[in-house]
């Protein structure tokens, strides 16, 4: 088990380890089955060729899968130490079509020493495609022991 993370050990400016994911149709289909979001904009390549919901003839990754991977940046970092995500707000900026490779990351921006069991940090979160363009940004509050 990795070295235990505590509220005291975390500092503003700490950068969380990044997560990377290549987006294939199979990755999207598996997420559709897991989330029960079978919307054809993600799952039906033939339909996407004509419907072009995002102006693209390709299926796009679920926005909530992007958010899930942004959350994974946090859970990889804090959950082995008993941390808890308590709030997250994400703005999805650009669609992520099949064939993209995205990187997800975060940085600690605030510490809130409220009291034992209630102390939390605030993080800025981001997701970027293979061109380095932001596809999502957000912020989260994470309770740390």
């Amino acid at each position, binding site marked *: 088990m990795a070295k235990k993370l505590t509220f005291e050990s975390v500092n503003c400016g700490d950068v969380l380890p990044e997560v990377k994911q290549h987006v294939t149709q199979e990755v999207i289909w*598996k997420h559709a089955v897991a989330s029960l*979001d079978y919307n054809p904009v993600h799952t039906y390549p033939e339909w996407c060729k004509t419907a*072009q919901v995002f102006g693209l003839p390709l299926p796009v990754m679920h926005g909530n899968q992007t*958010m899930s991977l942004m*959350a*994974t940046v946090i859970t990889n970092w804090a959950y082995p130490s008993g941390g808890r995500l308590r709030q997250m707000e*994400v703005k999805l900026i650009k669609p992520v079509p099949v064939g993209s490779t995205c990187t997800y990351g975060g940085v600690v921006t605030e510490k809130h020493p409220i009291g034992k069991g209630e102390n939390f940090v605030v993080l800025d979160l981001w997701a970027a495609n293979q061109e380095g363009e932001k596809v999502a940004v957000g912020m989260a509050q994470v309770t740390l022991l």
Partner: protein
Amino acid sequence: MGYLEEMAKYQRTEKQKSFSADFLERQQIEDYEFWDEIEIGKETVIPFKFEVKAEDMIAYAEGVPDSSPVFYDDEYAKKCGYDSLVAHPMFATQVLFFVLQKGHGSWIRTPGARNPGQILEWHDPIRVGDVLTVKTKSHDKWVKRGKYYMRYLSEMYDQNGKLKGRCFMTLILPKSKDDVLRFIKGEHALEV
């Protein structure tokens, strides 16, 4: 093989196998809500419940994909300080799509919808054995740069009435039933 058959290969849990996965099925559109008809302030306790099983939580983590053992291994989760297996934070997505298959809130299934981002709060851990009830309220709708936004506030409660989490669910929707019908036929029906 069709796209639904391709995905059926990955269905393992009881809920995945029983779920109505064809969002383009013409009949179900009669149960959908449409942007121009939604009444702000309407609140509903959704009659469908979600009984949480370990297979549901594990399946969600696999579909992220997230391989952290806190989502798969009860003993490991306890060593990390949790009282039992942990649900991935975005597991709420599965819960909401399961209970909102028809009626109030079913607009989340709309063909042609776009996701501009979401706000979630976690108040108490979801645990295996919880029976979740969702209360949903039409919170706001607005037009911005020619796009039609809809926001609902959905709250999840356990079998003891304890608040587990809240989600401000927002989508950009086709404006009307006619526009959704065009999407069902595979036509583009949004603003230029």
